[in-house]
């Protein structure tokens, strides 16, 4: 059986659809026996759902840098 450390890594990969079939099987088996990882896995899945629901947007570094400059010299546009 895989270790808790390994199970957590697989669980995180799964959130990004990057866990392979064998890995997912290893994780499932681990979760059957390990309550701590089972809880972690549930919370992790829930976080992914929340992030999807929130439909997040971010500004790029370039855009933020431009904003900062603009804030320092509000005069020139």
């Amino acid at each position, binding site marked *: 059986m895989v270790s808790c450390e390994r199970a957590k890594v697989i669980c995180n990969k799964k959130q990004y659809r*990057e866990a392979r079939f064998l890995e997912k099987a290893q994780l499932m088996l681990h979760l059957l026996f390990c309550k701590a990882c089972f809880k972690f896995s549930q919370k992790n899945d829930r*976080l992914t759902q929340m*992030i999807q629901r929130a439909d997040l*947007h971010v500004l790029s570094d370039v855009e933020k840098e431009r904003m900062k400059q*603009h*804030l320092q010299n509000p005069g020139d546009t």
Partner: protein
Amino acid sequence: MAKIELHPDTWVDRYADSLFNYAVARVGDEDLARDLVQETFIAGLKSAPNFKGNAAERTWLVAILKRKVIDHYRKANTEKGKAEVRMSFKASTEQEGDWLEARAADPESIRENDRIENEELGMAIQQCITRLPETQARVFTLKTIKQWSTEDICNELEITPSNLWVMVHRARTSLMECLNENWFKSN
């Protein structure tokens, strides 16, 4: 209550993403949303001397942004012809025979509340992300929000994949705790 002071030099790093999310959700256009956030910061800077210090900095900026969004819609509406509401009552074939009422929004619908709750959730998540250590926030944002591949992030930041997963793990664990504190307990 202690007076709150403004720190405009930290605004972009601390609030830009959170405000941007709020604006995108309301105007539905990233370029426009970015401009509104920019205007919000400028307006905040200009009216900083009037800041009474009895609201949190973020709340105050959100209030300004809210005005900017309203102003935007007001401006868009005064353009000739856009003020009238046009409605087509002509039924398309599949809706023929339906009651007109059936096509109006249901005021009891929970969907509208959902949308607002999701915006608030978005802001809560963004606030939690800004509390993460810088590299973690960076890796997490690239991976989760910008949805870059593991390989691209590793190349860009010159880290190994196992390094990346460690940071993703730490970021996610902190986020779970942060949201537990700031989202589940206050809702």
